[in-house]
């Protein structure tokens, strides 16, 4: 918020003075302008209050007039050109709103007919998806867990137990009024983008995003192991995701945890920080 401080010494703005003013307010302004040298005028208690009437404007609330006042006389030529621009702007606005609507609305015949045009207009700046906790909120919690294989100097390979990476995130989120993106979004979205791009039964990639999402997941895990003290001898990692249904209200029957275990992924040199 701005503070009203146009009372500071300076040339009083000729045209930027607010128009009609209510009694106390106008008095305050003119005293302030005149009181360049004089000590601060003692404001009377009544005027120190908020404007009695909502909407009564202090100068600070009066918008700046532009170099061209809105009520200035304009020639027919100027008005015509302005009108042309206005029509153009309104058309672009309607086109934009139309495409965003098609993009945002649940898939329908119209949005399928205009799929290509919508994509051209909307990507990359106006992409959006408002299926928030919808159609249904997730009915299960997942925990991404990982284990590592480290090759020692003598050639032996040591396999670690499962460490709960989601559990670490949750520790940071709990009790935090403003959780970090790194805890709340990183693994959550990395996993959902992986599952979008991979077949659940045999982990084969669907579409072109497969390798990219797999690499992202691998790098996240490698970085987490690095944070826990692993170095470049970390040879490969394996991920499993434990899914526990929230369960129906009432808590019965006791939900059972299911596991989806991915294969061993070898680390690449540039996976490390």
């Amino acid at each position, binding site marked *: 918020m701005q503070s009203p*401080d146009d*009372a500071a010494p300076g040339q009083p703005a000729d045209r930027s003075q607010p128009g009609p003013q209510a009694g106390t307010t106008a008095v305050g302004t003119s005293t302030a302008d005149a009181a360049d040298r004089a000590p601060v005028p003692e404001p009377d208690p009544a005027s120190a209050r908020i404007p009695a009437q909502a909407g009564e404007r202090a100068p600070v609330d009066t918008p*700046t007039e532009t170099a061209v006042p809105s*009520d200035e006389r304009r020639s027919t030529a100027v008005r015509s050109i302005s009108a042309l621009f206005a029509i153009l702007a309104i058309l672009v606005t309607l086109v934009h709103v139309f495409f965003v609507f098609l993009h945002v609305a649940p898939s329908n015949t119209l949005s399928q007919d205009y799929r290509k045009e919508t994509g051209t207009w909307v*990507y990359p*700046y106006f992409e959006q998806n408002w*299926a928030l906790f919808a159609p249904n909120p997730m009915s299960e919690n997942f925990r991404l867990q990982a284990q590592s294989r480290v090759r020692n100097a003598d050639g032996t390979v040591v396999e670690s137990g499962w460490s709960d990476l989601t559990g670490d995130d949750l520790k940071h*989120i709990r009790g935090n009024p403003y959780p970090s993106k790194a805890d709340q*979004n990183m693994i959550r979205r990395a996993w959902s983008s992986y599952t979008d791009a991979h077949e659940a039964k045999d982990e084969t990639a669907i579409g072109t995003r497969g390798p990219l999402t797999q690499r*992202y997941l691998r790098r996240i895990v490698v970085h987490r192991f690095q944070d826990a003290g692993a170095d470049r001898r970390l040879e490969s990692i394996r991920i499993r995701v434990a899914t526990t249904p929230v369960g129906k209200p009432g808590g019965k029957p006791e939900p059972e945890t299911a596991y989806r275990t991915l294969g061993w992924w070898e680390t690449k040199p540039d996976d490390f920080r």
Partner: protein
Amino acid sequence: MTSAEPQPRVAASVYRRAEDAVGAWLVRTLDTVSTRTFAVHQSALLRIGYGLVFLVGLIREYFNRREIWGDQSAWSPDMARELLGGIGGVSLLLESDSRLWFEGVYLAAIVISALFVLGWHTRAMSILFAIMVVSFNSRSILMTDGGDTVLLLMAIYLAFTACGRVWSLDARRARRTGIRPGTGPGHEVGVLVALLAMVALGTTCRADSWTPDPEFSFAFVCQWIWVPGIAVAFGALWRLPRQVEQVRAGLVTVVHNCALFVIAAEVCFIYGAAGLYKVQGSYWQDGTAMHYVLNLEYFAPWPGLSHRLAENAEMGVLIGYLTVFIQVGFVFMLFAKRVKYAAIVVLIGMHIGIAILLGLPAFSASMSVGDALFLPTAFLIWTRSRVIARLTARLRRRPAAAKPAAAVDPKASAPDPSDGLEGVATASGRA
């Protein structure tokens, strides 16, 4: 033709009158939208709100910045480029992989958001702000959530609005010097900042080649707008013929009004779509949705509280249904004043709940700022004057505390130290 056949003449005159009426209406409307700047206070509030959301986010993630957007990110710059290549995305952060560049852009983003909130050369700042928001979003798309998307959209739309006409350093400067927004002498600093903004825009969004892509889209506009942009910015150094000034002002006004319409439509789309998707869900219909939402571990900073609330089935049904009704009906409620304000109050309550219970304060703040667009001007001014009155009243009670409080005020940057206290004191006399 004058009096021969009465019947066709009556028909013609009715037709003529209708035509005249439509024509007059059209002319009046086109005149109005290109001379009258609508919702000046609301757009200023949006500027302050969204600027703060981004600024606070950057400061909050300062110690995680390298992990989220920087050199230590699991989403490496090359991966980001690969993904963005497919959708034509851009990011200033991907211009260079050096640590120095990253830190520089991060600092610049903080400074730009702060200046945007304060409204210093607002138009140029709003363009730079949009560039920064786009850049951080695109750099790590898989780090974003709904709140980031709202912020991204609004940052782009705000660049088209005149959101610095009130409650800004620009407005203060105009009051003090009498130099109004426009062209001619006195706008040199503004021109310089505008040129900087155009260079940043050209750098961020530039096309791969100099052959223009024939496919017209917003991305295409972003790629080339800096060329006329530089010319326009330079042109502002001179006073232009009055008629050119008038056309320019008309264009600025109509673009502002259209952008505000788009922002309003966007808020309605968000609620409408969120509601329509929920209507399709069985959990929202049988009233158990809140039970599931409150049991999601990633959205439970206070699990004890969430679980206790989730156990209350009646409350869950009530809140679930209320959410869906308000979201689906939001656009219709806007047309009835009293219902509209009730809806906004309920929505803001909902957002406070989401912020605390689900640990999504940035998302909630972004949505609440969007709702504020529909608040009446008188209410905004009343609130503003109350806030300032409280602040200054406290200041006068403890004059010793003037220094730290003045730092919150944009006036702290005023060259004359003596006007600090004086300004505050007189302001309280007025406000």
